[in-house]
């Protein structure tokens, strides 16, 4: 079922709230991976508020859909969603990054309910997702596995190992995303190395490849639903996104991979987000 206008409005409201929470956490935490948290937001909001078959009251329910955030540095943005979904008391997020807190920059599945795998080291998530999807097939389980990767992490050879084995096992219960914001820590991906053409790369590895605007809920929903119909191969949804999305002074600036905010910057960022959604 394609998303209705009502769905899209609801998802946009959630995305706005999550983006504002990301700004708030970045402020209280003394810094955070805000750029990539903002670029991934719409993908995760679509999953968590429309498509994932999950129950926040039963975070270890064995038939739940799995979500692996392979770009683990997006943990700040992921935690904002898990808290809002009710996996834990979201007021705990004021302790993000604080000593002894369950919330470090990269979420720990043994400490954070709703976190299906501890990620942060890049190039690990797709392999874990392949294992989960393969396990589901072997056990005859119907759950789906989703994996959200960064584009910079595609430099890691292990991603391509996992891509080979995922296609070989015909994992049509696996949908992965690339948050293609074109930036890594040191600068634009294509200036540091050559990642493009990602469509051809994944297609040649045997994946169904879809390319969408990663900030357009109609496109995100359409791609997720299309992936559910693909048989005998996994799907890679390459999402063109903007690092720092919705905050004008952060957008497309690699220096906002990680950063801190003073109260003026926070207020300006929150105003940008309000302004963006007022126009939408």
């Amino acid at each position, binding site marked *: 079922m394609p998303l209705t206008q009502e769905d899209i409005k609801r998802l946009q409201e959630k995305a706005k709230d999550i983006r504002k929470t990301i700004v708030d956490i970045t402020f209280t935490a003394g810094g955070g991976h805000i750029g990539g948290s903002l670029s991934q937001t719409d993908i995760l909001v679509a999953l968590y508020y429309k498509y994932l078959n999950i129950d926040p009251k039963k975070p270890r329910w064995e038939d739940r859909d799995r979500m692996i955030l392979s770009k683990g540095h997006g943990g700040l943005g992921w935690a904002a969603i898990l808290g809002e979904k009710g996996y834990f008391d979201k007021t705990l997020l004021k302790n993000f990054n604080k000593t002894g807190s369950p919330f470090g920059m990269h979420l720990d599945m043994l400490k954070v309910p709703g976190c299906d795998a501890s990620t942060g080291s890049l190039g690990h998530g797709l*392999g874990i997702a*392949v294992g989960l999807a393969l*396990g589901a097939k072997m056990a005859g389980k119907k759950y789906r596995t989703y994996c959200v990767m960064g584009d910079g992490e595609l430099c890691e050879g292990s991603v391509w190992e996992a891509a080979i084995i995922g296609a070989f096992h015909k994992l049509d219960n696996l949908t992965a995303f690339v948050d293609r914001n074109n930036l890594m820590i040191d600068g634009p991906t294509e200036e540091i190395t050559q990642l493009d053409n990602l469509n051809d790369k994944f297609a040649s590895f045997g994946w169904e490849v879809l390319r969408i605007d990663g900030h357009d809920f109609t496109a995100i929903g359409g791609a997720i639903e299309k992936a559910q119909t693909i048989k005998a191969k996994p799907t890679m949804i390459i999402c063109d996104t903007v690092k720092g999305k919705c905050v004008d002074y952060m957008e497309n600036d690699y220096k906002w991979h990680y950063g801190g905010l003073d109260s003026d910057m926070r207020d300006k960022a929150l105003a940008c987000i309000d302004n963006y959604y007022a126009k939408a």
Partner: protein
Amino acid sequence: MAEGMTWSIEEADKLTQAEVYGRVLTQLGEKDPKIIAMTADLAKSTKIGNFGQKFPERFINMGIAENSLFSVAAGLALAGYRPVVSTFAVFAALRSAEFVRTDICYQNLDVKIIATHAGISFGQAGSTHHCTEDIAVMRSFANMTVIVPADGIETGNAVAAAMDWPGPVYIRIGRGFEPPVNTTADYGFQIGKAVTMRDGKDITLICCGVTVLQAVRAAKILETQGLSVRIINMHTIKPIDKEVILKAVMETRRIVTIEEHNVLCGLGSAVAEVIVESGKACAFTKLGIPDQYVIVGYPEDLYNHYKIDADGIVEAVSALMGREIEADENWDDET
């Protein structure tokens, strides 16, 4: 099958470590449908392929992709399976170290690793295929249990015990040509409890893996020289059996450790940590591979070259027996 045993193989004392674990794992797989065997293009070399022949639907060959071997294993464990992963030690412990550490140990998942061709057992292959660093690496990973079985029978025991042990386990074995030490399997193998192979009061040899046999041979020679030699098979490096070490310090006051591993950070270091923390005087020597890359050769020749064979142990014991130590008169009061 002897009482308390979960596996039984005829003439296991004549089989190699790899052959035994392949068969034991297959027996365990019959009882536990959650066991999955995995490798990276080394099904035949590691003998984990035995499991695959019996249970092809529960056997995953990744191709030559050792990093993802461990992340996919982690995913399967998260899906409720119990993966047993086998590849060469140099790939498990070094190439894939961060995948083992982050995906398996950090998440404390039920994944067992059987690392073959460890140490210098693949001596002719050169240092790309030697692994004299794996005990050091693996024992530094929180949540990891590290076992170095002495022979085929003990490998069978270790694999069976590992499947009843929570969390990640690293089992280190050789290439498969190592001669046996044990003649029967029902000697009460327990993870974390060393086996005293023979008692003695003059000196203690603490060994693991292939050096257990060398220690047994050395003890026979030393016996003819009038020495009473204790042999401790420290098959579990982590958690280490502190009690047996302290008892040896107290009762023999002279200890030699012998390992087929870099002399830094392995068995000898683990034993030394226990001794030093006890604060008790003890004449102590670590035998192992010096901190260098090993020459090419047949394993038996290399054990001799690096003085971790019976002759080397005898030489080290003789030197250590001549060393004076300051006995601690208050031992009994403090322990």
